[in-house]
C-alpha cells in the first residue's frame, strides 16, 4: 500500500507540473493555427501576427524549460510521450512559419507539423484526465451539469482548467 501511495503521489506531482506545459503547448498550437489562417486565407501580415508569433515563441521557450524539469512516472509515460512529441513538432512548425513569413523559399510547410502536434496534444488529452483540448465550459451546446461531474467539480487545478 505504501508503494501505491508513493506512486499516486508521483503521478499527482507530475500532473501538477505537466499542466502548465500542456497549457502552453495548447496555446502555442492555437496561436499557430490562427497565424496560418491569417496568412493563408486572410492574407494578413499585420502587427497582430508579429505579436502573436513572438508570444508563441516565448510560450514555447517556457514550455521547453518546464518540460525539461518533468520526471514522468510510469503511469504517465504515455501522456509524456505525446507531450514531448507535441513540443518538438510545434518547434518545427514555428520555425517553418517564421521562415515562410520571412520569405525564405526553402522554408518548409508549417501546417503538417502543426497538425501532427495537435494530434499529439489530443492523444495526451485522452491519456490523462483533466487535460482538455477544447474548453467547453461556456459552450452553447455543453452539458454543464455533466461537465462539472466528469471533471470532478470546481475543486482543484488538475481537474478543472478554469479554477
Amino acid at each position, binding site marked *: 500500500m505504501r508503494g501505491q501511495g508513493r506512486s499516486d503521489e508521483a503521478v499527482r506531482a507530475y500532473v501538477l507540473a505537466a499542466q502548465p506545459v500542456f497549457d502552453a503547448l495548447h*496555446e502555442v498550437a492555437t496561436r499557430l493555427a*490562427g497565424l496560418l489562417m491569417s496568412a493563408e*486565407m*486572410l492574407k494578413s501580415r499585420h502587427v497582430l501576427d508579429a505579436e502573436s508569433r513572438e*508570444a508563441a515563441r516565448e510560450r514555447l521557450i517556457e514550455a521547453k524549460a518546464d518540460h525539461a524539469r518533468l520526471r514522468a512516472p510510469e503511469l504517465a509515460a504515455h501522456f509524456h510521450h505525446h507531450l514531448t512529441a507535441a513540443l518538438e513538432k510545434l518547434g518545427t512548425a514555428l520555425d517553418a512559419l517564421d521562415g515562410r513569413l520571412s520569405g525564405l523559399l526553402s522554408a518548409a510547410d508549417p501546417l503538417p507539423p502543426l497538425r501532427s502536434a*495537435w494530434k499529439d496534444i489530443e492523444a495526451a488529452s485522452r491519456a490523462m484526465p483533466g487535460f482538455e483540448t477544447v474548453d*467547453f465550459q461556456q459552450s452553447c*451546446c455543453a452539458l454543464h*451539469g455533466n461537465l462539472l461531474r*466528469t471533471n470532478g467539480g470546481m475543486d482543484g487545478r488538475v481537474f478543472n482548467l478554469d479554477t
Partner: protein
Amino acid sequence: MAEYSIWILNFAEVPDAATSSLIFGRHNTGTQVLPYAYTLLKGHGKTILLDCGLNAESHGKAFVDKFNVQKWAHPRDVLGEVGVKPEDIDYVILTHAHFDHMGGLSLFPNATFLIQSEELAAWVKIMAMDRKFRWLMGATDPNDMMEAVQLAREGRMIGIDGDADDILPNIDVRVAPDTHTAHSQYIVIRNDGRAASEDNYVYTGDLVYRHDNLHGGNPQDPFYVPNGLSYGSNTKLLMVTDEIMKTVKRDIRRVLIPHDQGMADLYPSRMTKRGHYLVEVALAEGEASRL
C-alpha cells in the same frame, strides 16, 4: 413551384441542455433536449448544406464522449434518408465557426465551404489573445481552423465579405455582426426565385435557438428574447431577430431553426430508424417526398 427542396436533418442531440443556455434569463428552469441539425437544399442542379455538423469519428469524439452528445450519426446515414451522399454536397454555407456547425468539414470531400471572412478574422484575433481570454474561444476547436487552412489552400474555403445576394442561385446571406459570434450570418432562400420573394425562408444558425426566442413564450403578443449565449451584444441580436422576422413577413414557420425540434411540428416530418427527425420543408418540381 419551389426552386429548392428543403429538408431539416437532425443528426444528434444533447438530452438535457440547461434551458437558460437557450433562452436568456430562464434560470433554474430545468433542462431541455437540444437537437443538432443541418439543413439540406437541392435545386438548380446543386446540392447545398447549411452548416455541416461535427465529426464524432475523429476530433469531435472527445466532445461527444465528454458532453453526452447522443445519437450522433454520420452524414452518409443522415443524408441517405433523402437519397443524398456526403460526396454529393457541392457547397456548405457556414453560419459561424462553432464546433457543432463547422466541425464536419472533413466529412464532405467535394464541397466548397462559404463563410464570412470577418468571422474567421475574429477567430484569428481571439486565437492570438492571451490565455486569460480563452472563454472567447467557446467551443471552437483549433482543429477546425487547421482543416480550414488546408481547405483554403485547395480553394475550397471561400470568405464572403458582408451581405451578398445570389451567392448561389436565389440564396442570399446576411451578416449579423457582434451577435452570437463576431460575424455570424443567416441565410435567406428565395424559393420562388423572385427578388421580392413571397416564398422565402431564413436559416438562422445560432442566432435563434428556439421559437421562444422569437415570441418570448407568448405568440399572441410576441416579444423577442435573446438566446442564452451571445458573445456579442444581445441588443444587436434582437435587432437581427427583427430583421429575420421582417424578411419572412413575420411568418414564424419560415424561420428554420436548427436547434429546435419544434420544426418537426410545423412541417411534414418523420422519425428515422436511428431516432432522428427529418423535416420536409419544401419540395422542388420533380422531387419525390422522402417521408
